[in-house]
């Protein structure tokens, strides 16, 4: 089906301005970002269950498959490509060290969820870490190594 309905929107992604772009009304944000070469945002289920598409929208983690591109008008977005500050560099090193990246499909979403955990400044136990990442599926690691990495980040960064 071709989309007849479009919206004209402006927003920022990883500090870069996108002004007056036309998007099909039915297009979700993940598809729009991927169409712009930002393929670090992964799509698994497109129904909110897997978490691979999790990005930052105005400072909060959201599912980019469950936000329309049109709804991003005026927003400040950050995707895994923009996770280059000192804290996120340290998080990535910790994931590498603990072998928490395997195929990498879940990684962008896991990194985003880790970022939100660290920004909340909460000292989580391992069980609490598991519950915080319960919305992100990983089919490779068995989660143990991801929990190890996040635990280390909480101890070292916060």
């Amino acid at each position, binding site marked *: *089906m071709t989309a007849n*309905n479009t919206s004209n929107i402006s927003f920022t992604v990883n500090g870069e301005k996108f002004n007056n772009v036309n998007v099909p009304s039915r297009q*979700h944000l993940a*598809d729009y970002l991927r169409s712009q070469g930002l393929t670090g945002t992964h799509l698994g289920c497109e129904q909110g269950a897997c978490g691979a598409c999790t990005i930052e929208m105005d400072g909060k983690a959201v599912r980019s498959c*469950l936000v329309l591109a049109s*709804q991003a008008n005026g927003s400040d977005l950050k995707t895994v490509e923009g996770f280059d500050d000192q804290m996120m560099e340290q998080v990535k090193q910790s994931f590498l060290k603990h072998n928490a990246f395997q195929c990498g499909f879940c990684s962008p979403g896991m990194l985003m*969820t880790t970022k939100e955990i660290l920004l909340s400044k909460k000292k989580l136990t391992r069980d609490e870490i598991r*519950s915080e990442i319960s*919305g992100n599926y990983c089919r490779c690691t068995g989660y143990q190594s991801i929990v190890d990495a996040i635990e280390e980040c909480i101890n070292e960064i916060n």
Partner: protein
Amino acid sequence: MKAADFSYHEATNIQDAINIKAKDEEAVILAGGQSLLPALNMRLSSPSCLIDISKISGLDDIKIDGDYLFIGALATHSHVMKNELVLKRMPCLIDILKMVAHPAIRNKGTHGGSIAYGDPAAELPALAVATNAEIIVSGQNGDRSIHAKDFYLGLFETAINQDEIVIGIKYPLLKQEQAILFEEVCRRHGDYAMAGLIANVNKIGNKVNDLSLVYFATGDKPDSADKTAKLYLENGYDYSNLKNSLNSEIDFAGDLNSSSEMKLHLATILIKKVLNKLEA
């Protein structure tokens, strides 16, 4: 999958949203999108137009309104969980919302969306029924208030008219001797429950002297079990008696994760699990 084509309208105020909805029968409200967009992506429905109300200001207030705690329709689950008034006056809501989906979904999903959608497996509609909450809707003829127990009519079917939108929910403030207890069984933290129970308890010390039970994820809407609650008050916890009573009172509907027999069993043991919390 991808959603079918629709037009998108960002509503500037409530009246604007009501006007469009009144004119176009196939237009639907978009709030947090955390239930609607999965349904559209899976092509379970294909509306003509989405009326985005998420940017209307002033619809996410949380405040005391007389004898009620008022939660604006657009308050997100995350926002409600961090709210001081909720923590002081209705802390059970925070425990309940912890079981609703996952953090990134709670950052978008709204209180009003969950109430209006009327998913039989969702926690908040059952809470609204169990606490005798009022659902405030606004339409072409102004505002009206609907008792939660009259709001849920059947599977995803509510008493909302075509031109109306939910603007907030009013929960009666809890009394000293009252407790709202909650428990659910699910396969994975954040998943929809296989069966869940909200109990509204009136107690003296740890002794229960009045009780109402409302289930979710058991039938086609929040299921009140008044006869069973009465039986419990008379005879205490007796598994087979309560199970028989629940079986006659609720039309259990099995799903992919649990058969109707299993839901009946879970509903029975949930009574014990929930009331054990009084002693904790």
